[in-house]
């Protein structure tokens, strides 16, 4: 692929985990302009590691704190307590150029691709923006990288000149993944990337994520409320409830030997599973 994107190689390789969260908490103040009275502990004392090359699934219901946790890993919001280490370094210590370097190494994919693309930029312009920001390659090299990556996510290079509103939800989510891997990050953090998509399109995107992850050797954190999706993509799974991780284990054990009462309740609530999906994997 065109340009050598020498990954801003880290000096400290001592830490084993890509992301290490340590006693992480986030408190949000509620109330309004006139009255500030209450606060919500959205994430409470979470410690976890994201290991190189794995997909860690974070599953929970609305309000469980899973998105807040992901945003703290992305350094989009500051923790109230605790810290996040990325490749052994505290996220708070990044600023200026080094912060920009960090952004190259971790990339988000969000739920609604329509709101995460600038409607006035063509898809190609949105995709080459990260290269321009980081000053990578000549204009010609940038363009060829855009069409290489578009091809990698299964979009024809003609999509480069189209605008977000001309793409379907699935196509746009492919473009969002393309944008996330433009800079060859080490880590992708995805927040409900398929929740807005139809089942038939969701499968395309999940498979694309799995394939790019293994082809590029990425590490992945995947947040979802959908237990089926989490089982499909994850190596390990963390179950969140009211801001805490109530259970974390291999995907296999979470789904076959859930230990925590809440995990069991969650699995039992999935409709239809006991009845019909037994032969699905094998139908011709």
């Amino acid at each position, binding site marked *: 692929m065109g340009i050598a994107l020498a990954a801003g190689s880290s000096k400290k390789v001592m830490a084993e985990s890509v992301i290490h969260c340590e006693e992480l908490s986030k408190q949000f103040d509620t109330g309004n302009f006139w009255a500030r009275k209450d606060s919500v502990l959205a994430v409470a004392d979470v410690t976890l590691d994201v290991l190189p090359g794995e997909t860690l699934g974070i599953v929970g219901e609305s309000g469980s704190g899973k998105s807040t946790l992901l945003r703290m890993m992305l350094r989009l919001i500051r923790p109230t307590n605790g810290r996040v280490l990325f490749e052994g370094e505290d996220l708070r210590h990044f600023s200026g150029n080094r912060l920009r370097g960090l952004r190259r190494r971790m990339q988000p994919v969000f739920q609604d691709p329509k709101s995460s693309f600038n409607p006035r930029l063509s898809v190609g312009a949105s995709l080459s923006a990260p290269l321009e920001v980081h000053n990578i390659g000549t204009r010609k090299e940038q363009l060829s990288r855009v069409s290489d990556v578009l091809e990698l996510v299964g979009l024809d290079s003609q999509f480069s000149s189209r605008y977000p509103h001309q793409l379907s939800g699935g196509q746009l989510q492919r473009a969002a993944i393309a944008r996330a891997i433009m800079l060859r990050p080490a880590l992708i953090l995805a927040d409900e990337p398929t929740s807005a998509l*139809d089942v038939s399109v969701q499968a*395309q995107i999940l498979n694309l994520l799995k394939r790019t992850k293994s082809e590029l050797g990425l590490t992945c954190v995947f947040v979802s409320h*959908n*237990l089926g999706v989490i*089982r499909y993509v994850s190596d390990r799974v963390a179950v969140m409830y009211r801001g805490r991780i109530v259970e974390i284990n291999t995907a296999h054990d979470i789904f076959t030997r859930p230990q925590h009462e809440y995990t069991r309740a969650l699995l039992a609530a999935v*409709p239809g599973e006991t009845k019909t999906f037994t032969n*699905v994997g094998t139908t011709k």
Partner: protein
Amino acid sequence: MNTSKSRLHNQPGQTPVLRIEDLSVEFSGARGIARVVDSINIEVGPGEIVGLIGESGSGKTMTALSVLGLLPKQAKVATGKISLGGEVLTGKSEREMRRIRGDRVALVPQDALRALNPVRRVGSQVGEPFELHRGLGRNEARIKAIASMESVHLPQPEERANEYPHQFSGGMQQRAMIAMGLALEPQLLIADEPTTALDVTVQARVLSLLREIRDHQGTSILFITHDLGIIAELCDWVYVIYAGAILEQAEVKQLFADPRHPYTKALLRATPTARTVQEDLLSIPGQIPSPFQLPEGCRFADRCEHRFKQCDLAPLLVETDDGHSTRCWLFEESNG
């Protein structure tokens, strides 16, 4: 949990609660005419829960809105007939439909919070059907409303009736909508993705409430969803709709045991489940065709792995056995 065996196909003598015959719905706009629902037939028997499953743009919601006479202005029923308990609804005036809606057929929409009036107390909204359709006074209506709220297991209905929608959780708002829908004991409840916005544990409780209502009151339910799991969990009979056309219909157990249409099969193989390990999900290539440019032949052909020459012609919905019907040349051939 498919206790009801009242399938009309098996009991031809019975009058269905809802019968949709040859219904087509068209939108007209600057880009021409879009046929979003194309000659569909649906029946819902007494006490039956019938699922209508489809992805976005399949026409499932437009079908529901046609029954209620609530199609958007740009859309119209182009062909077909809808009857409720034998009475033809199509062609009725808005005034006549108003008397029927809320009384004999009710809707439970997807977004309960948006459907509820934010500045009116929940109790007065749930009681409104009694005032409008039964001419009850406000106090009588309130008493009835509290009873309705109790029947959907809203906790402390008397106190809750005085609260506003925003004071309810999402699950409770949806229960309030169901209470309102069921207030006058309609023959038919149309539920349009009523649990899509809810958490999975809350969804499970709402689904079991709907089943309880059917079992105890014999209410027929047309349940619209994109979730195969809900179909399996709740419904007796299912119609699979794609790009405005029914591609397959069957008893629910039968559909999952022996799915026939390539689209149904693909959908099953594309759905990730929590109960089994799946090595690979099927990526169904492409996307649903635009209603402005429907293919002349089979609507799923462009995305179908079994496509052959015949698929350039439109297949018919053919009954293969016992009411199980499929719109696919693979089955039409073998059938004769």
